[in-house]
């Protein structure tokens, strides 16, 4: 009988804490949002299930969780903590991204830079609150609206905040259609939202091939810290555009990115154990993350309005909101809001330019913060 009671004491039911129950419920909510609302299902579903996995308690002598050395989950989590998965995701993103719209209208690239103001202003906010510079940098990068970048930088600077920051980054990416529209309406007039932009020019094949090489050289030489992210992004794009490595590009944008997304999502979710996740810091990170995202959106819109002061061919300021790098969700939101005002105004292709520029901009910002705060 004693054996039976001993076994009972090792079950999850016995060890479950109220915190674990809350996290399991949050995981279920994530899964529901992915399935019912289609909010970033490729990310929220693995993360949601990972949250459930990570909050099943186990006895100390059994290595099961992502934090237990030697456990299966710990081996997979190694790809997160060592910053291996994010560059691989960037490789896949590069292999599926068409930079044509950006190449046809290079001034829109600057909107991707302006939107990064969210990262740095939030860094100041996080410092003010009392986070360390390393933590503040990791929190600020949520405003880049780029999950892999946020995970990469946090893994390097503040690994203890990885769960909270990754969940915040991906949650806000999923909530782009909810967060951005009010800011877009607030900062633009109806007249501005009705601005039509000239269709993009046709970009030659050579331009598309040369771009990833030169852009990598420029960003890599200015901020070497962004090499792993930007390098993989442009390498993936070169695989796509060169036309001679179609098989590799195909693998990078399908099987590879899918496998890495599954492993990353599941283990990041599993890292949100109640004991480490349900803290005052996590709440602050979520608040700062939302602020960062809102500032980034506003930064892009306001800079587009600023550029309009000097341009003959005006930019629709809504396009500036796509400067946050949630590709392609924020560009889609721009298209939807633009079409609400004028059903025949197609802003999607224009919004893709600052959108992909935002990916490069946030990776450069991450590289800068990494080189600055690395111990």
């Amino acid at each position, binding site marked *: 009988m004693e054996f039976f009671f001993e076994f009972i004491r090792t079950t999850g039911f016995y060890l479950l804490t109220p915190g674990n129950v809350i996290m399991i419920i949050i995981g279920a909510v994530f899964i529901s949002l992915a399935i019912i609302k289609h909010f970033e299902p490729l990310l929220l579903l693995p993360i949601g299930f990972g949250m459930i996995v990570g909050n099943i308690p186990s006895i100390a002598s059994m290595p099961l969780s992502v934090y237990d050395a030697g456990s299966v989950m710990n081996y997979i989590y190694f790809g997160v903590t060592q910053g291996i998965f994010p560059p691989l995701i960037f490789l896949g993103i590069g292999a599926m991204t068409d930079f044509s719209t*950006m*190449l046809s209208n*290079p*001034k829109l*690239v*600057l909107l*991707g*830079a*302006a939107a*990064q*103001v969210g*990262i*740095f*202003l939030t*860094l*100041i906010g996080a*410092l*003010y*609150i*009392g*986070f360390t*510079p390393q933590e*503040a940098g990791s929190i600020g990068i949520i405003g880049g609206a780029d999950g892999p970048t946020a995970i990469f930088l946090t893994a390097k600077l503040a690994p203890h905040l990885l769960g909270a920051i990754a969940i915040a980054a991906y949650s806000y990416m999923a909530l782009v259609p909810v967060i951005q529209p009010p800011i877009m309406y607030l900062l633009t007039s109806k007249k501005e939202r009705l601005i*039509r932009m000239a*269709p993009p020019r046709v970009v*030659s*094949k*050579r*331009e598309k091939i*040369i*771009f990833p090489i*030169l*852009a990598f050289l*420029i*960003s890599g030489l*200015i*901020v070497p810290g962004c090499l792993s992210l930007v390098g993989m992004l442009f390498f993936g794009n070169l695989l796509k555009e060169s*036309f*001679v490595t*179609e098989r590799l590009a195909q693998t990078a944008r399908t099987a590879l990115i899918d496998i890495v997304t599954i492993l990353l999502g599941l283990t990041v979710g599993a890292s949100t154990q109640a004991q480490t996740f349900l803290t*005052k810091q996590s*709440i*602050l990170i979520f608040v700062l993350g939302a602020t960062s995202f809102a500032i980034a959106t506003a930064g892009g819109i306001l800079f587009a309005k600023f550029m309009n002061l000097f341009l003959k061919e005006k930019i629709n300021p809504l396009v500036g909101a796509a400067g946050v790098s949630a590709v392609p969700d924020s560009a889609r939101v721009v298209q939807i809001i633009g079409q609400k005002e004028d059903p*025949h105004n*197609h802003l999607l*292709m224009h919004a893709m330019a600052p959108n992909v*520029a935002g990916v*490069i*901009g946030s990776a*450069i*910002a991450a590289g*800068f*913060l990494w080189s*600055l705060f690395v111990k």
Partner: protein
Amino acid sequence: MNILAGLGHGWHNVHDANGLMITVIGMLLVFSSLLVISLMIRWTPYFLKVVARYFPEEDLALNGNVKSVSETEVVAAISAAICYSMQSTEQQ
């Protein structure tokens, strides 16, 4: 509940960590990197025109380097052409 209690918040943290300087330099770096990329994109076509005089651009698709174009890409191209055509008509 004061969520900031015990965190030692204040502007001295920002000052001690050179927060404002990091923000200014960070934004300058991001802007300058993307500005240089933007200028590079702008000047590439002019450079390629010169190159094309000596090495004319070949149609990769005609040379058989491209095996096949997927159905999705064809649909995307047709949609883009219709969209472009509609915009041009309305502007006229």
